[in-house]
């Protein structure tokens, strides 16, 4: 163990491929892992070691919540005592205020995963005396600052569902600067104008952003104060997620010789309980031992409330799980995404997990009414031969309409987020309204999130975050400025997603010692 640690530290210290900041962050993660893991039952420990259940390599002893969503509107109204910041009076002050505040927002990546609902936050500071050109110039400067100060594609801003000058300016700036940061989600409601969605679609053509989310569905789950952060994680604002634990359904089925019925009746209750136990141990370590909520200024100044946090309960590898169960059932050719029997099995498994999660009380999970939020976890770089979340495997997706029909029914069961990515031919660039039709249809059909990529885009979505192809070149030798680019580099190598290349950083969350 000690030798391993020394080797790991040596590797970080002597690496030519990661920069100073990234080295500091990696070293901190290594130190964190020196502490003993929160106490687990032997069954949970065994499942964790075998990676049937997983802690996302967050670090063995959590001292900060994984995802923190500060109430930025409240901060702008009341100022921040800890940072000696008065409530700002104009746009320049507001941008400066937020930039400073971002530097103090903790998260598992060490960068803020949520920058706020920026159009709603900034619109009050934009008066008639400011022209669109002036507004664009200010936001453009700020956008560049955000990308360089917070070089991580999990840094996420929300916009919509209403039209306004700031949201339009953000789209123009996005199309002009073509950056990875920030990741972007547009909240879409039936009242969101077609023309605004079309502006967003045109932005996707250039940058691969934003995602489109089902605002009414989110409001039904979380209330109006919610946001989408990191990649596809929907949580309450002024709240967040203590941690993310996940269940590998592929591994679970590998230990299950029986059919679908016994998997749902016997195997799932067992694994859901072990996953919840892991989550509970991590929550207690964070809240009771590390005392995050007692000491952090966001908490003491009311910008977050512990009662609005919960645990994210992730699942992944549904496709492999279902296909294997179909073999156990004697339906050798029935594949998820293509065969009604497999699709029905998938819906049943997800429904069962949702039911079990809602029956397992957890401490300090007021955000979820005392329970974890279910999340379709879209993967990390170490996942081999296992499909992200509840997606249909890459390359095996049916036509778009059928694809939507297969996945839409389960989206409502994932309050903490779910994603399916659609690849669209570049001819659609001449007809962006066609994408507006598809997005409206997909959300009306019950999808929580709709994300699409152009086949030809310069930006590639890895699991949920973006990297620029040009940034993927030469990462191994020259290093990368964005932490997420390193993840992408490994994800690329592990999944052969495309011929994607890299540059710029590291993420502590993903890399176990040794």
């Amino acid at each position, binding site marked *: 163990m000690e030798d391993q640690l020394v080797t790991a530290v040596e590797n970080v210290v002597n690496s030519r491929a990661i920069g100073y900041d990234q080295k500091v962050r990696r070293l901190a993660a290594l130190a964190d892992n020196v502490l003993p893991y929160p106490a687990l039952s032997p069954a949970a420990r065994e499942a964790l070691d075998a990676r049937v259940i997983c802690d996302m390599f967050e670090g063995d002893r959590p001292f900060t919540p994984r995802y923190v969503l500060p109430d930025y509107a409240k901060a702008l109204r009341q100022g921040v005592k800890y940072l000696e910041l008065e409530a700002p009076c104009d746009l320049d002050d507001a941008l400066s205020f937020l930039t400073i505040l971002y530097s103090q927002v903790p998260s598992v990546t060490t960068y803020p995963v949520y920058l706020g609902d920026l159009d709603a936050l900034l619109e009050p500071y934009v008066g008639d005396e400011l022209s669109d050109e002036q507004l664009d110039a200010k936001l453009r400067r700020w956008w560049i600052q955000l990308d360089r100060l917070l070089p991580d594609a999990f840094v996420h801003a929300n916009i919509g569902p209403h039209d306004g000058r700031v949201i339009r300016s953000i789209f123009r700036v996005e199309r002009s600067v073509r950056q990875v940061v920030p990741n972007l989600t547009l909240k879409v409601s039936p009242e969101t104008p077609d023309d605004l969605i079309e502006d967003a679609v045109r932005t996707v053509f250039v940058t691969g952003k934003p995602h489109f989310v089902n605002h009414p569905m989110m409001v039904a789950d979380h209330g109006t104060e919610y946001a989408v952060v990191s990649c596809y994680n929907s949580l309450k604002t002024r709240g967040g997620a203590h941690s993310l634990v996940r269940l590998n359904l592929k591994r679970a089925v590998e230990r299950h010789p029986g059919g679908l019925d016994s998997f749902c009746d016997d195997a799932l209750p067992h694994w859901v309980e072990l996953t919840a136990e892991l989550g509970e141990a991590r929550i207690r370590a964070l809240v009771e031992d590390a005392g995050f909520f007692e000491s952090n200024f966001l908490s003491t100044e009311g910008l977050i409330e512990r009662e609005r946090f919960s645990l994210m309960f992730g699942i992944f590898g549904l496709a492999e799980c279902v296909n294997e169960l179909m073999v156990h059932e004697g339906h050798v050719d029935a594949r998820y995404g293509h065969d009604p029997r497999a699709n029905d099995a998938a819906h049943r498994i997800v429904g069962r997990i949702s039911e079990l999660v809602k029956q397992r009380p957890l401490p300090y999970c007021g955000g979820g009414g005392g329970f974890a939020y279910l999340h379709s976890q879209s993967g990390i770089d170490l996942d081999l031969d296992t499909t992200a979340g509840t997606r249909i495997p890459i390359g095996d997706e049916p036509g*778009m*309409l059928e694809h939507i029909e297969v996945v839409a029914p389960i989206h409502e069961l994932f309050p903490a987020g779910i994603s399916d990515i659609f690849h669209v031919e570049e*001819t659609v660039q001449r*007809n962006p309204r*066609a*994408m507006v*039709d598809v997005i409206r249809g997909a959300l009306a*059909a019950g999808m929580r999130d709709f994300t699409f990529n152009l086949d030809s885009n310069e930006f590639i979505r890895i699991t949920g975050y973006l990297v620029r192809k040009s940034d993927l070149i030469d990462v191994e030798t020259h290093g990368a400025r964005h932490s997420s680019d390193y993840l992408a580099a490994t994800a690329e190598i592990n999944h052969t997603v495309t011929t994607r290349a890299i540059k710029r950083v590291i993420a502590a969350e993903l890399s176990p010692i040794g």
Partner: protein
Amino acid sequence: MTTSAAVAGLVTDIIEFSVVDGPGNRFVVFLQGCNFDCLACHNPYTITPCIDCGICLDACATGALSMVSDRVVWNESLCTGTDACIAACPYDSTPKARPQAVAELMTRIRRTAGFISGVTVSGGEATQQAGFVHALFTAVKAEFPGLTCFVDSNGAADVAVWDGLDDVMDAAMIDLKCLDDEVHVRLTGKSNAQVLATIELLAARGKLHEVRLLLMAGLNDSDELLAETGRWLAAIDPAMRIKVIGYRAHGVRPSAVPLVEPTAAQREHYADVLRAEGRFDLQVI
């Protein structure tokens, strides 16, 4: 008397989501049979209805084609989509086109309705089955008043056809193969008189969505011809929506007349020549 839901059309193919057949995302029905015989036709197998000769049966490696009561029958579940049958057909046809009733198509449109701006009929030449098109559009309008109904046509249809469709057709997209009738005859086998009349008629009715110009290098792309075409179109509507499409050889039959793809620079030049004649809403493809 049959009800309109029972009216059947000879359908070559269906695309549930199309982004290139009119405004927004569209459900497209391709109808078999065309009154033109264009040198540059991209899907020549849609020109002639199947005559049940059975030549294609031998070309099918998976047994998806069979002869039943002197008719060629295509079994979709056995088909692997190699299109060997189409390659073997000497008559510019396909055994896969089959009669489909309005009610049958409506089942599929219903499934798609939430995701589209409307329905487009294309071909082949859709107006050759105008009765069916009318019945289909009537059914679409009755059930989904928010959806638009478009026709993609070569324009060679009589006024009576357009009059008949008028109450249910929102707009049409018309191909103009060439303004010069002599060249038009060489390219399509037919005169352009009806095409020109169609463009004028639909524009006057506010039902001309766009005019498409398919241009082949050295055949119908001279500056003089394009300028004259621009002037003629501008006189009808100076803000007309025009799509300049550079010919592409994909799918086209071997031709005695050499057909040449224009370069990107040539396509841009076509657009410049046209723009000099009107403030068109112009797209180059």
